[in-house]
């Protein structure tokens, strides 16, 4: 079995330890004897979506996001077909915003991919905090760090989780991130996956299911992962 990961534009979108998400996916494949390969795409590279099982779209500064946005227009149709075909996507911070219709900033509008029915508006101050969210379908809450000026509104989309501590999508509706088809979009970095191995495995499982029609992931010990996750919950939830 093999998982092929495409990292989109790490030159521009790599602000919040996104490399950690890649390392986490690769290691958790390797530890189970699943092959994993990573292709980094630069702006000028063509992307063959049929050759990819997981796509990572990371975070960048607003300026860098605007550069990427121009490029995204040219791959939008292929990307949309990939998503509708249940292709797995992890989009973090800026990448999450780019999934939506647009991001309105004081420098103008950054057009998104319109892959998911959401939009973002710049707000002040930046929402900067450790963050803990909960989703009943997962055995353990997700923890991470958020740092975003944008307020994202996700309508009826299913959130990745309910905010227990921190701000989330927009600081108001207690929702964080989205789950749509096989997309996970979120403001959580820190990076996201190492302290949330169950979310990493969820992505891997979905990718294997789509590719091979079955996905049995052998369990890993995850002691360090769980303790690091628990530490954040203890520190910030027990204080409330």
């Amino acid at each position, binding site marked *: 079995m093999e998982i092929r990961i495409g990292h989109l534009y790490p030159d521009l979108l*790599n602000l919040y*330890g996104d490399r950690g998400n890649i390392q986490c996916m690769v290691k958790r494949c390797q530890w189970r004897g699943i092959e994993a390969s990573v292709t980094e795409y630069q702006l000028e590279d063509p992307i063959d979506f049929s050759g990819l099982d997981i796509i990572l779209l990371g975070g960048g*500064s607003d300026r860098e996001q605007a550069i990427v946005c121009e490029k995204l227009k040219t791959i939008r149709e292929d990307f949309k077909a990939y998503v509708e075909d249940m292709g797995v996507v992890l989009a973090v911070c800026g990448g999450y915003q780019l999934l939506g219709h647009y991001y309105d900033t004081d420098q103008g509008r950054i057009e998104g991919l319109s892959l998911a029915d959401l939009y973002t508006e710049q707000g002040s101050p*930046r929402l*900067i905090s450790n963050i803990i969210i909960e989703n009943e379908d997962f055995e353990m809450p997700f923890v991470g760090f958020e740092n975003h000026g944008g307020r994202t509104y996700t309508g009826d989309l299913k959130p990745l989780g309910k905010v227990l501590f921190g701000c989330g999508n927009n600081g108001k509706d207690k929702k964080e991130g989205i789950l749509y088809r096989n997309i996970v979009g979120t403001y959580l*970095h820190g990076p996201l996956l190492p302290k949330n191995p169950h979310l990493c495995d969820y992505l891997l499982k979905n990718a294997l299911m789509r590719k091979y029609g079955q996905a049995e992931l052998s369990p890993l010990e995850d002691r360090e992962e769980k303790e690091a996750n628990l530490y954040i919950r203890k520190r910030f939830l027990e204080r409330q």
Partner: protein
Amino acid sequence: MKVRRLMAVWTAKIISAACRLSGRQGVTLAGKIALKIDPGILRDLSSQVREKIFVVCGTNGKTTTNNLLCSAVESEGKKVICNHTGSNMLSGVAAAFVLSAGISGRLDADYACIEIDEASTLRIFPHFKPDYMILTNLFRDQLDRYGEIDLTMKILSQAMAMAPEMKLILNGDDALSAYLAMESKNDFVTYGITEQVFHDQDSREIREGRFCKKCGAKLEYEFYHYSQLGRYRCPSCGFERPPIEYDAKNISMEHGLSFEVEGRSFHADYRGFYNIYNILAAYAGAREAGFALSRFSQVLESFNPQNGRMEQFSIDGTKIILNLAKNPAGFNQNISAVMEDPSEKDLIIVINDNAQDGTDISWLWDVDFERFLDPSVKSVTVSGIRCQDMRLRMKYVDIPSTLVEDVEKAIKDRIQHGCGNLYVLVNYTALYSTRNILAGMQER
């Protein structure tokens, strides 16, 4: 007014002394209270500096560069005020002046060498306009405090505009610093390294500002020194590395650091390629102020990097080197410096996430820790507030580590059971406490 200044000076001195007695660093508090008692005190005292005021800014290397610059100027027989401890926000800078004032509330100094946190420049420059600003480099740092590196650049560019007479002394190998200088209306000179030093170029290292700040195109590099420092040009708009006035040549790192600049040979007994930049920056600064620097070799020889910048301790037969590592560029350079030492070694990595460290520790995942996968690395201990995250980070580069949250315990254990050669890498707020622990143990 005069009474108020005296009050401020005396109170600050008492606070600082009291804190020192109780083993805490009272510099910032002393400055804060002095400013509260007399808001004009920093303006007054800084105007009493008889000759020039230097400030040192930049992500990494500020403290070492500033302390070295101070020693260089002192070697010319001048009296210098310096914020040696690296307290570099408004209160820390105020404290440096206030604590140097006599009990009469007057200052006796020819020069001031002051390192300033980039984000604090706009709050400090209303008090005084420096004559020179040394800009060491701009890397990704403490993201959650600054938002983004673009914001830091915006702040620095406003600061430069506030002090149009201030001459910039900058690292020409850093495209971000060079861009700032070229766009400013300030006079500037450059230092840098034109020859290629490293021949295996790791393309995965996170490099800030690989895109031209002027036009957005991808910069072309002839080579990198580390991070985004190197020889660059923009294929699209013609922006390129400026000519280098103070250029280090014939670099050797076999036994400490050796290089030539302006046809003179220098040698320093400490490790770390990045220290060449720190030395060059201090040298260029002092030269620009008109000093001949005939005793610069002796300055380097007697300069003991302090405050946990490659600072050495010896405790019960174990050699310990303490070094600050607070962001990916700095940490990667630290790893290089540690691995330049071929002998067996133990490592302790201390990571805190207090406000001054940056509460976001994602950057740990942008550091190339896999370079510690080497037989000479005998053990890795993780410590500090975020030791859990650090242990996890090491797990994902296949390096097992021992978790000892308490730093003192971790150090004691390695002194008792380690191989006698210990490196302690710490981020910002862990520095002072760790240094105290080591200094205390060394005295006993």
